[in-house]
């Protein structure tokens, strides 16, 4: 019995030692005469940024002087932007591990258990300037479970997490019912003989899950003695109470309208994911001031298992969303042939989105959407020092992420 | 001049020498002996390993190094394909054979159905490799096994018969070649005589200017069939034989399609002859032969319809002098048959991969029936039960997978190979005096060659026999024993040095000298 206690004491002292070490050698670095796009604010040319201890100390034009003893890095001719944030990122697990397929509705399962920091897709994202990603369970279940926001570098998933339970994913459309088979007599030899087997069935599962949650909400005020609601229902209750944002993945026009209708029916706030047909329902989205996480604007076709629900994406969608004043972010989404995030923004810029809006759609807007704009998303004093030094203007096809920094530490020298 | 001194020298061709020395001049070994015995000229490079061990360069008698994944799965190999064509240095982990002390390796590929191409002997280098001069085609690989899957004895029997059929038709091919050579010389001489005759004759009756209808007709008939205009070259070619429509693959058994066009023309010609058609010039080739070679032109001349006029011509103008000779038809080149001929002549050893006892017996029967002089049995797991026959027929054996229980969990009924014990086999072959080599089998296991020999020692094989099985015997099997395989005068200077005895589990190669050049030196 004594062993575990000794162990705890030992660990405590070790962690104390580490933090002391970190603060002692407080390295201060200054990045001088760079062209800085702070995100959300206008550009500052030949500016200086001072970083130390993983935070941004100072940022500004000529008025910011370099503290003595600081390591100076000259970024002549280069551009510094905040670290990019991908609000809908697909890690490379195969489909089987992205969803718990023994049931269709599993709201309480966390994708965090699946994260492998040395996943090659994280390294590719880092090399292209992405410093934080929002990962959600797969699109195989009707209600997949809890997504999380993590930084794209770290030795242990726990240390990478910025926001543990950031969202709950709901999937509209036929995709969740693809693998199920109707029980029409004959041998039932696998668990996949179950509902839902159609789009109606999928929406019915969502409605029933929310109904149970509403039921549990009213009941708890009543008799406290009953058995506590199942963990899944507890999560659904948080969504209904507005404590947890629900992300609804919907691609075709029909699914988008259903998503908005269900959200209105049960009275919860929802963010629309993928939304290839957004330009067809732009007015309704604007009316309900919904937020859209647009999947891969550059894609000419939808590939992978989602092709059934996908529709022909239109290049003009970004311009429509911008002109209608709909809040949206650009993401790589579930399309396996999506380009790196910065190139998606470049294509959005080509299809008519202003340069400032295009950059904001992959930096400050996703931070606001995920409720983390106090820590990441833009370059301002006190925020995390997540930033990228680009060789050219980032929306230039020849732009390369010269160095990517997370918490002030350079995490990748791609070239 | 280079000198290597070490605690013990294992020359393989002689007893172990304590505190020995190997003297190398240029590419060859000058002398092997006790330290201090030989005086050394001034500018010699001296390597000293006080408690190291010197061995001859290891020889891997069967590996698939320098072959990338595409070549290792190339199902199209047949008797004619030269593996040396496809070998490439790609600096992958499997290509660094030299670091494991392997100075010579025989490369073969385990892909393809029966005849699996001609293996090559290579000398690995620090980066790249050299082909052994005249050993680019070192042996013909033949597969005579159905593999570890459960297979019916009758199935294996029918496979062995099919292999037997490969060898017949060879003598016909050889005669056709020789006949073609003779005809060619005869044609040259006849043509000269024919020209002289006419030159002489024209010299005499310049004024007569006799038209010579017969030859003109012969010339005219040589005109190739009038081909359709190029534009509609895509009209459907002759009957498709084999190969599914829309499938880009060439029709299987390319020869078969050509056969059908020929028989088609013969039958057409005989029908024409039967009908007594007066038309003598060649039938317009309705069945336009899609084969690009000019063969349709030649074959047209060879069709029987022509022959009657020729023979007729002879009789009528008896006193006319030599007629114009006909250019002989070149037989289709068939690299596979040429390789099989070389096997029968003994120039090319035949390597037969046979695992089970009945497959080994069938291989030995093939050697007896076809009198194949040099046969090497590969991977002969069941060889311990046919040792007498192997010894009687002088076949040699190359063993691979000599690692503990490498063929499966012992006693596992589902796996027919689990009853073979590859580590105990070397001792039994050694007792029967059958020359055998231990080889890695695949480039990934090249670094474990000494460990395989150690595994054999663990099951009773003597240390010298084990060392010989990875140095001198493979050299003899590959036919390069006069140049390498042991530390003897005038052989190539292939020398490796290890820190502890080679067969210890943690033995490390410190130095590799191949052909006198220092190829690898451990840091």
């Amino acid at each position: 019995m004594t062993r575990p206690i000794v162990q705890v004491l030992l660990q405590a002292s070790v962690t104390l030692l580490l933090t002391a070490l970190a603060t002692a050698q407080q390295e201060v670095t200054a990045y001088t005469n760079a062209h800085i796009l702070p995100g959300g604010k206008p550009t500052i040319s030949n500016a200086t940024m001072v970083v130390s201890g993983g935070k941004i100390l100072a940022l500004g034009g000529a008025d910011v002087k370099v503290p003595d003893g600081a390591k100076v890095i000259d970024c002549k001719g280069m551009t510094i932007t905040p670290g990019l944030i991908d609000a809908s990122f697909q890690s490379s697990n195969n489909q089987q591990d992205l969803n718990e397929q023994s049931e269709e509705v599993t709201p309480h399962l966390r994708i965090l258990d699946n994260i492998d920091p040395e996943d090659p897709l994280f390294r590719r994202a880092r090399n292209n300037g992405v410093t934080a990603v929002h990962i959600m369970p797969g699109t195989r279940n009707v209600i997949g479970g809890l997504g999380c926001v993590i930084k794209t570098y770290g030795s242990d998933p726990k240390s990478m997490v910025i926001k543990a339970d950031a969202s709950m994913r709901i999937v509209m459309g036929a995709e969740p019912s693809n693998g199920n088979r109707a029980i029409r007599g004959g041998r039932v030899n696998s668990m996949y003989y179950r509902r839902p087997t159609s789009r109606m069935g999928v929406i019915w599962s969502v409605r029933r899950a929310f109904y149970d949650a509403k039921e549990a909400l009213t009941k708890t005020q009543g008799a406290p003695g009953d058995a506590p609601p199942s963990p899944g229902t507890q999560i659904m209750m948080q969504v209904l109470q507005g404590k947890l944002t629900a992300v609804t993945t919907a691609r075709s026009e029909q699914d988008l309208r259903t998503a908005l209708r269900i959200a209105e029916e049960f009275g919860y706030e929802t963010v629309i994911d993928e939304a290839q047909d957004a330009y067809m329902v732009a007015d309704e989205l604007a009316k309900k001031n919904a937020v859209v996480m647009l999947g891969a604007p550059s894609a000419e076709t939808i590939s992978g298992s989602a092709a059934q629900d996908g529709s022909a994406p239109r290049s003009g969608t970004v311009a429509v969303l911008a002109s209608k004043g709909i809040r949206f972010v650009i993401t790589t989404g579930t399309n396996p042939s999506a380009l790196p995030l910065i190139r998606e923004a470049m294509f959005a810029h080509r299809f008519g989105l202003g340069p400032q809006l295009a950059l904001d759609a992959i930096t400050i807007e996703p931070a606001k959407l995920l409720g983390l704009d106090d820590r990441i998303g833009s370059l301002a004093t006190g925020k995390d020092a997540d930033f990228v030094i680009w060789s050219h203007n980032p929306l230039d096809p020849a732009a390369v992420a010269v160095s990517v920094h997370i918490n002030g530490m350079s995490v990748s020298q791609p070239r | 001049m280079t000198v290597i001194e070490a605690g013990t020298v294992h020359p393989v061709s002689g007893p172990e020498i304590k505190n020995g020395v190997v003297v190398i001049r240029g590419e060859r070994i000058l002398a092997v002996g006790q330290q201090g015995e030989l005086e050394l000229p001034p500018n010699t490079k001296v390597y000293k390993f006080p408690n190291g061990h010197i061995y001859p360069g290891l020889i891997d008698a069967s590996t698939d190094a320098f072959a990338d994944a595409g070549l290792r799965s190339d199902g199209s190999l047949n008797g004619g394909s030269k593996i040396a064509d496809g070998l490439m240095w790609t600096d992958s982990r499997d290509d660094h054979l030299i670091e494991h002390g392997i100075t010579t390796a025989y490369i073969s590929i385990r892909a393809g159905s029966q005849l699996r191409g001609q293996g090559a002997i290579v000398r690995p280098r620090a980066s790249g490799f050299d082909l052994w001069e005249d050993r680019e085609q070192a042996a013909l690989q033949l597969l005579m096994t159905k593999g570890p899957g459960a297979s019916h004895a009758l199935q294996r029997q029918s496979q062995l018969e099919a292999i037997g059929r490969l060898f017949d038709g060879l003598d016909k091919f050889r005669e056709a070649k020789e006949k073609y050579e003779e005809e060619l010389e005869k044609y040259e001489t006849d043509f000269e005589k024919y020209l002289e005759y006419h030159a002489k004759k024209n010299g005499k009756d310049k004024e007569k200017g006799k038209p010579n209808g017969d030859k003109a007709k012969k010339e005219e008939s040589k005109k190739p069939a009038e081909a359709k205009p190029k534009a509609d070259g895509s009209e459907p070619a002759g009957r498709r034989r084999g190969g599914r429509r829309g499938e880009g693959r060439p029709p299987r058994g390319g020869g078969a399609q050509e056969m059908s066009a020929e028989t088609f023309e013969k039958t057409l010609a005989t029908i024409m002859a039967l009908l007594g058609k007066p038309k003598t010039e060649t039938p317009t080739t309705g069945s336009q032969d899609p084969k690009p070679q000019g063969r349709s032109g030649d074959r047209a001349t060879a069709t029987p319809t022509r022959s009657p006029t020729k023979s007729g011509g002879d009789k009528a103008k008896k006193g006319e002098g030599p007629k114009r000779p006909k250019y002989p038809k070149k037989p289709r080149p068939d690299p596979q048959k040429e390789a099989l001929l070389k096997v029968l002549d003994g120039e090319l050893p035949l390597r037969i991969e046979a695992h089970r006892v009945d497959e080994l017996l069938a291989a030995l029967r093939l050697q007896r029936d076809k009198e194949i002089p040099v046969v090497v049995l590969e991977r002969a797991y069941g060889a311990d039960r046919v040792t007498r026959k192997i010894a009687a027929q002088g076949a040699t054996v190359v063993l691979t997978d000599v690692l503990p229980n490498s063929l499966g969990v012992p006693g596992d009924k589902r796996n027919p190979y689990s009853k073979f014990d590859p580590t105990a086999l070397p001792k039994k072959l050694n007792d029967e005096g059958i020359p055998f080599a231990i080889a890695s089998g695949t480039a990934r296991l090249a670094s474990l060659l000494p460990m395989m020999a150690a595994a054999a020692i663990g099951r009773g094989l003597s240390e010298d026999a084990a060392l010989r099985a990875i140095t001198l015997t493979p050299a003899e099997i590959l036919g390069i024993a006069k140049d390498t395989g042991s530390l003897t005068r005038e052989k190539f200077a292939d020398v490796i040095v290890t820190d502890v005895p080679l067969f210890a589990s943690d033995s490390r190669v410190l130095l590799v000298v191949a052909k006198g050049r220092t190829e690898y030196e451990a840091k």
Partner: protein
Amino acid sequence: MNHSLLRIAIVCTTIAIPALGQDLVAIKAKTIHTITGPSIQDGVILLQNGRIKTIAKASDVEIPWSATVIDASDKIVMPTWVLAHSSGGMRGSNESMQNVPWLTVADAIDPASTYFEGMLRNGVGTVHVLPGNNTLLAGSGLVVRPFGRTVEDMTVAANTGMKMSLLARGGSRLQKIREMRRAIAEIREYLANFHREKAEFEKEQAAGAIPEDKKWEKEIDRKKQAAVDLIEKKLKGWLYVPSFAELDEALRMGKDLDLNFVLGANLDEAMPLLTKLKAAVVLDDALEYFETDPETRKEKQYCSAKMLADAGVPFALSLASSGPSSYPWWQFGTCVRNGISRQQALEALTMVPAKMLGLSDQIGSLEVGKLGNIQILTGDPLQATTWVDTVVLEGAVVYERSKDPRLKYLFEAAKKADEPKATSKKDEGK
């Protein structure tokens, strides 16, 4: 639905355009990039009968009154791109039989194919159409202009090369090499046999066995003419080399045939061999690829264009039929991103392919006397926001962005939104 609709749209636009390059055309441009010479600011290009008459600054050129003027004074003018190797624009690009050297793409090109419409939209002025990669000797190609009602209209140059390929489908690389060697050996044998018979005929004639007046009228079989020209180096060979494994064999074949190589991906293992390439090569459209080291499981990104540039081998780019690599600006961006100079990237779609096709005196750059193949861009060719505004082929306007049906379809949504401020200028201010 939309394919047939679009095709009708193209046909009707072509009729409206006046006959090609009869008269004088003048193009006023903000910047003219001539590729071979220096760029000219606010220049004017004068075309006569489809050929460039003068290129100079606007100040020292006097535009004749009869010339039709194209005002591009706020745009960039460049020569149209040249694609040295492509197998698009044909109903089927591969014959099912392996050895068909007598075929020609002239019989398969479909002038109304949307492929050529895509070429115009991307500013491509000359395309060398060759058969696909699945056959051994696949037949000869044709250099065409992506505009015209019939194949004859579109043809720029014929007999430009025989397509050969070493692509082994179904893992039979050695067999493919063997078949290629045998096919070439048989053609050589046929040729040698033909010359031997001719020599013997002359000897017989000299010796009097054949009367003097009889001439030798046997000539090469029409079906083998193309292959014989290839052997006699009268016809260029375009050899598709799928990966590093076939490069060795390709170099060996290059010694005795006049070959241009079309390199596939996965070339990093053959880095030392690349330096042995003497002539320019064409690169597949996929320029970047990832490779995972089996030992360390680390992923490394390679760019075939960079490898060739380091080996000092001039290269030409190709465009895919769809996806990002079907846009020239994306291919240029990929090259510059991997460390290739801007000029070398631009030449990879202009002068280098023109030289490979042997048409460097006709196309590839804006010089006096060359064909008037000109594209007018809204901005710098290496920028993502640049669109091709107009394409002029041999003095005739063949493409205008405002009348492009496909772009209308893609951006229709922007039109439907009631207020016009959806365009990028409006967003600048926000």
